[in-house]
């Protein structure tokens, strides 16, 4: 992950603002106003904000330590003392879920960061240069897409060894094709526009055109894809942890909590129900928000 900041070339991102005429800034403003008006995306946004607040404030929000075991208080039903009950080792489920938020956000951001960086680079190069580079890159992407995502992630973790970091890397790599395809198709249309021709006409180099002019104008679909991917990434990582290939004990990762609690599915359903619900709401939040973003950024939907 240290590779993340180096490969992205952040200076290119301000691109749209540089040639920010009144028109382009109003595109983003329009989008924002549409986003806020949409109820579903607003709910999604609220969930995400709540999640971030909880993650930051975890020590304050949590009522107990997430790893403190009280073996004499195992499988307690939800009560005033333990809001969401206790698990198979007498740990407070509410506190574990609260701390688990941090892990989930971390997974979401890092895994999608990996997918985005690699995907944008590959997609941008494939779309911009075309010909055999395009062929090679996209066939590799096709091969990756031929695997069910969780299977590919499992295979990667099997090679790398089970740990949360490796699970994030695996989920990140699995998400690459999505970004690569979207960026490639957007680049294909953007590179035919007049301002790109103009840039080429004044003798700009390929690198400069790609990173300063083409990619910044592909930002909208990338943002949408990134938001939607966060949900999927969290879900996939939870799946890996469920299978024992992600977060290792005693980490309060939600998928691992599901897996540990399933022995008591019949006698103490709250042990699995609440981490399950937590995953549900987070994924729901990112998906609602992502959908809203897509609608807001789609110029064809402009009234």
């Amino acid at each position, binding site marked *: 992950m240290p590779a993340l900041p180096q490969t992205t070339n952040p200076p290119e991102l301000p691109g749209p603002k540089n040639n920010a005429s009144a028109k382009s800034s109003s595109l983003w403003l329009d989008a924002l106003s549409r986003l806020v008006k*949409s109820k*579903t995306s607003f709910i999604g946004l609220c969930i995400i904000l709540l999640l971030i607040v909880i993650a930051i404030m975890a020590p304050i929000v949590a009522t107990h330590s997430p*790893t*403190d*075991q009280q*073996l*004499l208080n*195992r*499988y307690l039903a939800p009560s005033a003392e333990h809001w969401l009950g206790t698990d*198979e*080792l007498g740990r407070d489920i509410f506190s574990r879920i609260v701390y688990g938020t941090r892990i989930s956000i971390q997974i979401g951001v890092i895994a999608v960061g990996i997918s985005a960086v690699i995907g944008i680079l590959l997609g941008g190069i494939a779309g911009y240069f075309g010909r055999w580079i395009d062929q090679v890159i996209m066939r590799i992407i096709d091969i990756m897409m031929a695997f069910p995502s969780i299977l590919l992630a499992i295979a990667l973790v099997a090679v790398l060894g089970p740990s949360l970091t490796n699970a994030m890397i695996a989920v990140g790599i699995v998400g690459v094709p999505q970004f690569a395809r979207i960026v490639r198709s957007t680049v294909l249309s953007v590179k035919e526009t007049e301002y790109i021709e103009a840039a080429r006409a004044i003798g700009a180099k390929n690198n400069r055109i790609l990173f300063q002019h083409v990619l910044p104008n592909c930002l909208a679909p990338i943002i949408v894809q990134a938001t939607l991917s966060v949900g999927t990434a969290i*879900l996939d990582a*939870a*799946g890996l942890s*469920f*299978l*024992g290939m992600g977060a*290792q*004990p*005693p980490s309060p990762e939600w*998928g691992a909590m*599901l*897996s*540990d609690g*399933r*022995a*008591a*599915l*019949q*006698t*103490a359903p709250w042990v*699995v*129900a609440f981490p*399950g*619900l937590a*995953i*549900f709401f987070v*994924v*729901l939040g990112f*998906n*609602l928000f992502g*959908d*809203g973003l*897509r*609608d807001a950024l789609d110029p064809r*939907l402009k009234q």
Partner: protein
Amino acid sequence: MNKKGLWTLFGLLLLVVLTVSGCSNDQAGTEEDTGDETAEASDDAEGSEGEKTLVFGRGADSVQLDPSQITDGESIYVTNQVYDTLVRYKEENTEVRPSLATEWETSEDGLVWTFQLRDDVTFHDGTDFTAEDVVFNFERWATSADFIYYGYMFGATEDNLKGIIEKVEATGDYEVKFTLSEPNAPFLFTLAMPPFGIASPEAVEEHGEDYFKNPVGTGPFVFEEWVKDDNITLVKNDDYFGEPAKIDKVIFRTIPDNGARFMELQSGSIDVMNGLNPQDIQQAESDENLQIIRRPSMNVSYMAMNTDQDGPMGEKEVRQAINLAIDKEKLLTLFEGVGKAAKNPMPPSLWGYNDDVEDYGFDVEEAKRLLAEAGYADGFKVTLYSMANPRPYLPQPKVTAQAIQEMLAEVNIEVEIVENDWDSHLAATENGEHDMAFLGWTGDNGDPDNFLYVLLDKDNAKLGSAGNIAFYKNDEVHDLLKQAQTEMDQDKRSELYMQAQELIHEDAPWFPIAHTTPPLAANKDVVDYLPHPTGSEPFNFLDINN
């Protein structure tokens, strides 16, 4: 697009529901396929000929079906049905009764044993059983260190593959004579152990390396099919010389998850299961279709510490500190009443148990003091190898590992849990890859030798086939155990074993965990299921009511 949002929501809901019930569904899904087939098969059969099939659900598959090459209970469960030993245990205890041998006598010095054999026995492949076949088997086991139990029980080593059995001769068609190099008190009881089941020489030669997949014995059931990690099917041996089986077919099914296995029992797709989750016992008891069968306790679960290293585990003080730092009483709550705290490496139900040994008790301060004394006040990192599959002596390995992880964190010992499937766990620990590791032992012959010598003698601390996975090497203990093997007087032997337990307690190569009364759950229609203390029982006595 709002509609799409709704659909997304619905899809997500589905996804989460699937995740929540995820794994058990996955497993149930694949298992059910086979389950349905077997159920159908047995239904059809019952309809036409009244065929009875027993489906036995368990947590892990057998490692091999050649009993002489394995030590794990899951393999023995199956081979106990396929093979006979010269003598067998009685149905409820570890006294012996005639089996392939009808009578036996021993010379006064205890060195020569003569067995009279049955003359009416045929192997499943149709060949006749004679004294030569017994000789063939014993000579085969003395050809390589791969025959692990032979080494454990008869003291065979790389240099002396025969161990204490100097000679095995056929002195007649149906008479076989053993000459030992030194007296061996548990000898007769050892011969009743399932690992010494007599295999058909023809089949062994025919299959060679693959024999472990094609077992041929004389037992009450004939091996039919093995689908790795799924099921093993046995059918009734119509020509069995002993009590003929009352059921026609036995299917051992591997269902790794305790909860999923219990659900299958409730739904009727399996008839008997072991490895019941402790918290499911009550539910099984209140279910009018189910019964709980409690196996008499003759086992021990433990956390071995790899003493054979320069690091912290090599230090006696550190191992004692670990014993002090774990609150055993609390840990035992994870057994939900099926386990009693262990302080010795052998169960209290055996003679020779030293009840005067006082357990370390729970004392964090003393533990810290000992760690500081050994120079590890700041703690250290260790691995704890744990099996993914539940074992009869350790029903919840994962949770137990996490509890120990947390308790040792109190004294600054950082535990990394390494979880492996049952057979890889065995391979890894026998190979000494661990710092600490969970394992347990169910007694095979009701003799203390079978616990102390197998699990803690330096003879069995060989990398690759270790029974002593603490790699504990104490010459004093070794001398006591060897002396006890050759001593024929039980009171004197008992005294020697008690001394050995004192020494072992002091050196603390283990953190002994528990002795359990492993519960099996079965459908009420299964009758006369006699759970044997050794952990597996032949199925020719039980029956299924229709």
